């Protein structure tokens, strides 16, 4: 074996071939990192506050309104985005010139036009010309992608304060394909499947994983019930920014000013029997109906992110911490399974396990895929979309991610210390899934005597 002098000599000979010889002789190979096998990864980070954490100090959204018929049918897209951007600045007293970048997730509108609209919206919201803005399109998770992009840029040190937002007016920009389709797609099933209407992919999921009509309608009823309860108890008041706009009477053509402050797609009295009467839309003997699909809506959301050190310096309350983000790819023909792949990936990347997560916002693009993902991951229904989802509230594609951040973090704030980690996830058209992990921000709970504590979770799971 090696004698002691060789040891010190070896420490000094960086890159000496002798050293590698030793390694190979002893059969040493580069050892891959393995994920914590202790089962309780959370044990090592019960109290972690880093100055370079990316934190969310504010997250707001507009009400979500039915497209073409709802409250925003006569509202321009930039007038949807401007109020939420403005609210971030006003409610935090931040100087808008300090914002390093604004990233807006937006899907259906023509790219360059929407980018210009966003720039205009920033001006309407009171941002100076020195603050840049850009758009990002990852289909249904664009809003979440925007937040993740800003978090990544802050981590990278490009700037310290940024805004991730989402915007969609499905009234102004309905889903459509422009121009001709390249005939080459016939040569490749996966490419061809990218053109499937989303509803057909939903039928595929329902059929392949045998999700029944009954289960789907039940999920829709639950979504409406929870959303109605949340609205009635005023839970959304913390996250919704009322939008002053106009509405045109379709018969008389009269224009009248109006302030929209509640979501208008929720049907509190939705019932299984009513939903059961609806006809399937995409397939004759299918299961996907207008009632158990997400609603087509208009809306916007915005999230203000910054380094923790900056937030502390400014004395801003910390709503949540952005932990990590993951996007994955799945079969385009069953794009709805995205969350079932993305959630485990993101939870693993955060060094957590599924049962460490206390709250989920999983986008209900279709009841079929939502129910499938819930069952596949064996998640507790009590933890998912506690304030309803897209079937009741609506799914303005680009805005949904930012909307979920606002809904999740405000709910986590209400729940206090018992709710430490939250996950947002959604499926993405053309076969992808995205998910992000958030952690509750403030170390100290709001004073609440009413909150019931089921079990104490001050110690790691090891100690039980």
């Amino acid at each position, binding site marked *: *074996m090696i*004698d*002691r*002098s060789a*040891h*010190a000599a*070896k*420490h*000094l000979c*960086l890159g000496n071939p002798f*050293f590698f010889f030793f*390694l190979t002789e*002893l*059969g*040493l190979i*580069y*050892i*891959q*990192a*393995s*994920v*914590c*096998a*202790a089962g309780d*990864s959370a*044990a*090592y*980070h*019960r*109290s*972690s506050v*880093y*100055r*370079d954490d990316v934190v969310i100090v504010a997250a707001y959204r507009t009400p979500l309104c039915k497209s073409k018929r709802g409250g925003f049918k006569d509202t321009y897209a930039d007038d949807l985005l401007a109020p939420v951007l403005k609210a971030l600045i006003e409610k935090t007293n931040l100087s808008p010139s300090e914002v390093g970048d604004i990233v807006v997730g937006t899907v259906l509108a023509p790219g360059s036009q929407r980018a210009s609209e966003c720039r205009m919206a920033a001006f309407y919201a009171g941002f100076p010309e020195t603050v840049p803005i850009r758009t990002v399109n990852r289909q249904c998770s664009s809003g979440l992608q925007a937040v993740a992009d800003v978090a990544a840029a802050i981590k990278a040190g490009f700037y310290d304060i940024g805004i991730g937002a989402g915007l969609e007016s499905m009234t102004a920009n309905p889903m459509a394909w422009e121009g001709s389709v390249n005939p080459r797609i016939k040569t490749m099933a996966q490419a061809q499947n990218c053109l499937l209407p989303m509803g057909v992919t939903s039928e595929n999921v329902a059929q392949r994983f045998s999700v029944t009509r009954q289960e789907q309608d039940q999920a829709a009823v639950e979504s409406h019930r929870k959303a109605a309860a949340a609205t009635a108890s005023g839970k959304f008041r913390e996250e919704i920014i009322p939008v002053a706009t106009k509405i045109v009477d379709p018969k008389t053509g009269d224009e009248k000013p109006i302030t929209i402050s509640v979501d208008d797609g929720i049907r509190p009295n939705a019932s299984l029997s009513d939903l059961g009467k609806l006809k399937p839309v995409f397939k004759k003997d299918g299961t996907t109906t207008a009632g158990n699909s997400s609603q087509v809506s208009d809306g916007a959301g915005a999230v203000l992110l910054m380094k923790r050190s900056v937030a502390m310096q400014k004395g801003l309350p910390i709503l949540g911490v952005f932990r*990590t983000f993951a996007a994955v790819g799945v079969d385009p023909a069953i794009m709805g399974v995205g969350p079932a792949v993305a959630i485990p990936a993101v939870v693993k*990347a*955060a*060094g957590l396990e599924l049962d460490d997560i206390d709250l989920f916002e999983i986008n209900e693009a279709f009841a079929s895929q939502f129910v499938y993902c819930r069952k596949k991951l064996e998640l507790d229904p009590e933890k998912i979309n506690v304030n309803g989802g897209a079937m009741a509230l609506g799914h303005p594609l680009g805005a949904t991610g930012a909307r979920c951040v606002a809904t999740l973090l405000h709910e986590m704030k209400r729940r206090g210390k018992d709710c430490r980690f939250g996950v947002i996830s959604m499926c993405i058209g053309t076969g992808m899934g995205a998910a992000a992990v958030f952690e509750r921000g403030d170390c100290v709970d709001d004073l609440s005597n009413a909150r019931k504590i089921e079990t104490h979770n001050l110690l790691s799971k*090891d100690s039980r």
Partner: protein
Amino acid sequence: MPLFKTPFNGYSVKFSPFYEHRLAVATAQNFGILGNGRLHVLDLSPGPISEIAAFDTADGVYDVAWSESHDSLLVAAVADGSVKLYDLSLPPASNPVRSLHEHTREAHSADYNPVRRDSFLTASWDDTVKLWTVDRPTSVRTFKEHAYCVYSAAWNPRHGDVFASASGDCTARVWDVREPGSTMILPAHEFEILSCDWNKYDDCVIATASVDKSIKVWDVRSYRVPVAVLNGHGYAVRKVKFSPHRGSLIASCSYDMTVCLWDYMVEDALIGRYDHHTEFAVGVDMSVLVEGLLASTGWDELVYVWQHGTDPRAP
């Protein structure tokens, strides 16, 4: 501040957690390659450094650790593989109070559990880490997973069951003594890792020091990229140590004969460089009881004790 000349080459220094004026020094003859060893306990009271006790060993002493439960108890890691316990309150003839022979090769580091205070770890060139308690004649457990010499093992400052080890197999591992195997493998460097330590203020941050001349700071929750890479030493980094007083402060010593202080949270991380040694600097420690008090030793047979910001060589 004063300095102390040891007859043998210095290997390690440790401040007593009980007395601010007490320092233990591990030394080995002929650079630890061949010959005897001696463990010194020094008194740092104002004036020249005096020796309270010295214990001779048949082989070099590579490391020493103070007990966290008894002010007079010391653990020495000896090059013949033995682990020896010394009690300052007993006469020299009764010492060592215990000599534990289990490691089959050089014992290279010792660390006393700061949370439970009843047990300690030793890391050895026989590729293992052993867990001992003071009252048992044999080790409680042997942790054998590393594929090459283990140079250091350090307890987590908050979790009494968690420790980290640094090895020549280019990995650092995190262990939980309640688990059968290591709970995390960190392929931290491309070259041998000589030392590791936990942040005393954040129980998921760990620093590793390597032959590749760098110190890396890791967050065990997201270990794919280091939180910080501290470059500045000219040769292999021999020891790394987090400050007991400031969460982001790190001390290190290196074969480049310098002791460096770093703040891993700021961009210009290197905040101090002391080049008082004239041979390899192999031991460094920061006092828990006096903020900013540093001690170092090296193969130049000298022990320096000084306040951060002052010149170690100043009389």
